[in-house]
């Protein structure tokens, strides 16, 4: 198993298009098929039945021609037709069963894989998400899973069934007439060359084109997202010139592809004519020697071009498998990453949090030896409101991260209600705290759904009581559909201020014992500012609260202020005390507010 730290290095490797065949990966992937063994068996049974019917039809036709039509036996011909009809029905039923099962199994497997991947991601710790870009993880769970879908479309049954099919056609031909089946010596290598050699070139060129196209599209995407900057600098004409040349590069690559495509189908067309021509030639010779009948020639004409499709499917499948290998490698890489923070075996059972917090000589570094907090020691009793202030990079956010146990201290201890934080079950602890972040991450859905995110089992009355307590009930009622208002992807349909207030409500509905609030630094409009201010008071009341404060009013209301600088706690105390002590806090406040706060 890979730890998170090493996983980071692995995941940042370049994304290869194709991978080597690895039995280990295949085995892990096959595990996903285990729940569907029965259906899989049935699917293969149907597939082989299908092959059998497919092979039998030309033979039955041959019998019909040679023994009934040529012999003027109409009753016999009726029998042949009935047999054919049965075979056709069999072909239909088997084909349908096989196809339907293949889709059902395949999409279920993809569904299960996606669910597993998503569930696994939920267990990973912060350090993983710190180092991985969302886009890269997204591409694992979307594009790489998609590759498996393409594999499925290429046919789960392909290699085995098609090899059997090819073998059966060959056997049938040899059985009918071994001399005539020598024509296979011309067509089979011909088709194989087309499918395995030309197609490979074709794919390689296709990938190059795809790369050029992605350059074109990336440029285009930026031109759309950055249109305002482009306007501001009047860069339209230069951009058009750059785009045209990228587009020309793409066209240049494309011009290498379609001649190959032309050669591919030219060969298929010529070999496709050559096969029957040979059958007619050799068949004529054999016929004149009275070694075969006319029906055999007819059957051969049917068989001869049926080699192309299965061969092409096999070749496609081989290519798909090598792409899928690369994807499987990337998917299982993520599955193998283990969370840094795991619950201990002997945790405190049924923990009820009251909110006493103590930091004991806490040191922490995100990267080895680069400490962002040093020897942090302080104690907070139940119910206090603590404002944390300090310049950017002073370690305020780290205090939050440690308090939520997103990371464990490198050295020292965090004690909550007398227990070391690592002795608690993460879920137990976190379900009794609440965090409001600067950037209020909302999820698409309604207002009510977003508030309920804090407590999924809350009923509408509880939701309302929370919003009323915060004084935002009227604001919500004024929106279209009120509590059922759809806030859009990441809350894009409502304003930043409204998102912040919703984040407050989401926290309050949990009635947490510890509240951690990273106050937004951006200035909202008058109305919203007032709401935010009073909501902050409501939120902090009656519980231990840590506020990274950006508003003077919040700081003034705090029971204690922790002043951070370069990872150490430099001062603590009440606003008035700190001001009169004339330390860093006093200096900063005077410098900032002294002039205009008259």
């Amino acid at each position, binding site marked *: 198993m890979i730890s998170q730290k090493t996983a980071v290095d692995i995941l940042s490797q370049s994304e290869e298009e194709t991978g080597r065949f690895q039995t280990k990966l295949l085995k892990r992937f096959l595990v996903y098929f285990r729940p569907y063994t029965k259906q899989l068996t049935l699917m293969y049974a149907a597939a082989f039945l299908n092959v059998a019917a497919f092979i039998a039809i030309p033979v039955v*036709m041959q019998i019909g*021609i040679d023994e009934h*039509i040529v012999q003027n036996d109409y009753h016999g011909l009726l029998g*042949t037709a009935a047999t054919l009809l049965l075979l*056709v029905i069999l*072909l*239909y039923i088997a084909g*349908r069963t096989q196809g339907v099962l293949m*889709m*059902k199994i395949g*999409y279920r497997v993809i569904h299960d894989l996606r669910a597993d991947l998503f569930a696994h991601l*939920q*267990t990973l710790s*912060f350090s993983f998400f710190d180092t991985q870009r969302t886009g890269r*993880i*997204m591409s694992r769970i979307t594009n790489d899973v998609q590759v498996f879908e393409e594999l499925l479309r290429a046919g789960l049954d392909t290699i085995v069934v098609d090899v059997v099919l090819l073998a059966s056609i060959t056997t049938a031909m040899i059985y009918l007439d071994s001399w005539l089946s020598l024509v296979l010596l011309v067509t089979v290598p011909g088709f194989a060359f087309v499918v395995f050699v030309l197609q490979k070139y074709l794919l390689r060129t296709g990938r190059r084109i795809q790369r050029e196209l992605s350059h074109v*599209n*990336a440029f285009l995407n930026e*031109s759309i*997202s950055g249109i305002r*900057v482009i*306007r*501001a*600098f009047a860069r*339209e004409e230069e951009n058009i010139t750059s785009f*045209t040349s990228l587009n020309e590069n*793409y*066209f240049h690559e*494309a*011009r290498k592809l*379609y001649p190959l*495509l032309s*050669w591919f189908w*030219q060969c298929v*067309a010529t070999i496709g004519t*050559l096969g029957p021509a040979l059958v007619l*030639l050799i068949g004529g010779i054999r016929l*004149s020697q009275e070694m075969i009948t006319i029906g055999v*020639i007819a059957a051969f*004409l049917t068989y001869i071009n049926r080699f192309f499709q299965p061969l092409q499917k096999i070749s496609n499948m081989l290519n798909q498998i090598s792409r899928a290998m690369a994807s499987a490698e990337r998917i299982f890489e993520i599955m193998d990453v283990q969370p840094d923070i795991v619950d201990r075996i002997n945790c405190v059972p049924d923990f009820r949090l009251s909110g006493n917090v103590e930091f004991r000589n806490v040191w922490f570094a995100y990267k080895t030896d680069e400490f962002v907090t040093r020897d942090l020691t302080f104690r907070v009793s139940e119910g206090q409101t603590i404002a944390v202030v*300090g*310049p950017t990079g002073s370690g305020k956010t780290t205090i939050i991260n440690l308090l939520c146990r997103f990371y464990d201290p490198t050295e020292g201890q965090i004690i909550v209600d007398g227990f070391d934080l690592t002795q608690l079950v993460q*879920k137990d602890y976190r*379900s009794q705290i609440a965090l409001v*972040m600067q950037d209020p*991450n909302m999820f698409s859905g309604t207002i009510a759904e977003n508030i309920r995110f804090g407590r*999924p089992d809350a009923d509408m009355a509880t939701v309302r009581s929370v919003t009323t307590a915060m004084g935002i009930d009227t604001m919500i009622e004024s929106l279209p559909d009120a509590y059922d208002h759809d806030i859009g*992807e*990441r809350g894009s349909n409502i*304003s930043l201020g409204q998102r912040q207030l919703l984040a407050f409500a*989401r926290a309050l509905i949990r009635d947490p014992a510890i509240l951690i609030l990273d106050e937004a630094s951006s*200035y909202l409009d*008058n109305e919203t*500012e007032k709401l935010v201010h009073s909501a902050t008071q409501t939120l902090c009341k009656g519980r231990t609260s840590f506020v990274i404060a*950006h*508003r*003077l009013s919040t700081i003034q209301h705090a029971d204690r202020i922790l002043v951070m600088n370069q990872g150490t706690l430099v001062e603590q105390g009440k606003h008035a005390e700190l001001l009169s002590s004339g330390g860093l806090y006093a200096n900063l*406040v005077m410098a*900032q507010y002294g002039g*205009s706060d008259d």
Partner: protein
Amino acid sequence: MRNALSVLMFRTLLRLQPYVLAHKSLLAGALMSVLGTDLLTYAIPVAVAYVTDVVYPELQAGGSFTGLARVFVILVFSGILRGLAVHSMIRFFWGFAERVVRDVRDATYRKMQHLSLAFYDRSNTGDLMSRVTYDIQLVRNFLAFGIEHRIRIVVISTTIFALMLYVQWQLALAVYTIVPVFMTITLMFSRRMRSAVAEQQNQMGRLNTRIQENLSGIRVVKAFAAEDSEKERFRQTNGHMLDTDLKASLLQALLNPILMISDGIGGIIILLYGGLRVMDGSMSLGVLLGFISYLGILRFPISILAFNTATISMATGASGRLRVLLDTPDQKEESRGQRSSRVLGKVEFDHVSFQYDYAQPVLRDVSFTIEAGERVALFGLTGSGKSTLISLIPRYYPPSSGIIRIDGVNSSAWNLQSLRSQIGIVLQETFLFSASIASNIAFARPDASIERIRAAAKRAQIDDFIMSLPKQYDTLVGEYGVGVSGGQKQRIAIARTLLQDPAMLILDDCTSSLDAETEQQIQRQLARLAEGRTTIIVAQRVSTLELADRIVILADGRIADIDSHSRLYERNALYRSAVQSQNVLANAGASEL
């Protein structure tokens, strides 16, 4: 039905008319090759019939092999010829398609670069992207093989019918009963498949949004211990995905076996009816075998029909959307001003009102004058119209009524390129392109020397940071490059404008995301830059407001007051209380303590 689809094909071509006509000789070549490709296929069934009825009986009667050899040689030749026809057909079609698509892509990009910002306000990035990427790809598919398949479906199914009728009309009619049946079934399926596939794509979008939201909000999820409820929500979305996937793919799985048995059924008809005719002597065995061979050729149009229908109807939609885009009027058509002299910096708003085309008026009857060289701050609550006002000056939008004059000349009379390149604007939300830091800073002056780029970066307080990166000024930023923070991005954007050295400067509250110390340093630089040039600053912070010669207070789209900071502070109670109550707290904010 088949006609309706051919109509769609012509409509699609018509929408792309100028681009198609530019390469019409390639299309003509392609169409000729189609005939060669399909007519030469009949060499085999014709040979089969002839050999069976004429050559083989001769041989069996002890005749020579010359007849057989002749047929063989002819077949080999026709095979080679058909190969050549196929080759040139594909080369022509694809060459035609790639060229047309290249031209359409260029034209679309050109159009998009000049479309008004109002257009961009209405559309979202994803939508526009898919217009140019996905839609153009659909058109390419249509041109490269959609037309080919459509024509060949028509050519093959009619010529075979004609040939069959010619050879043996009763049997032809009997066999041909299956063709309309299979084609109708296919079309029925393909209609249902289209809506199922559309639903599948929508659901895929929803699924991706769900994952995206979860991943970007993963910190909240963890903080709220909401992993289980997130898994449950995902389980539902994923379950719907499975349902829609199955719906679309099962339709395909049901259609395939139907198509697979088409020649089986045809074969039975030929064997039964043809066999009877052969027995009573009214038809030869060769004709019967020839018919079986024709049946093999008929597989192609039947099997390709569903796919082809989808290709054409998707391309019709795509070409319609592209046409709408290409026909949208753009800034080049809307504004043909020619004035391109040096901007001195006097700005007059003369009874200007403005509204975005779907909404309430944002500016109402705004009149004021900014003298050249003056420094003016815009102050007002969110939504009061500040950003709109500044975006009218470089004429990103034309005013709905009233006139804006730059140096006494209506802004519509200015050449847009010239006007805009003389106005430096730093937006609140900035954007960096996927390129090196150096070329991002040199965006306005691509030929600037690295010394000048560094000088600008130094003034924007970002040089130290850039030099600390391993590749320094060659570091790639933007979507595919290294991540830089909002503040760093903003400073790069400021450096970009400093290097531009514009005649007029517009700053849209662009320093508020920086910490106080950096902000003050940058403001000192900006103040130096503003020296002697007209500067318009959207500002909230007292420190910035104090620097302005005059402050324009906007409220609800109207000018509420204009005066210097000190005088406004004295006489305008609202301004005073706004400055006191929130600004001191929020803007001089403790965040930077």
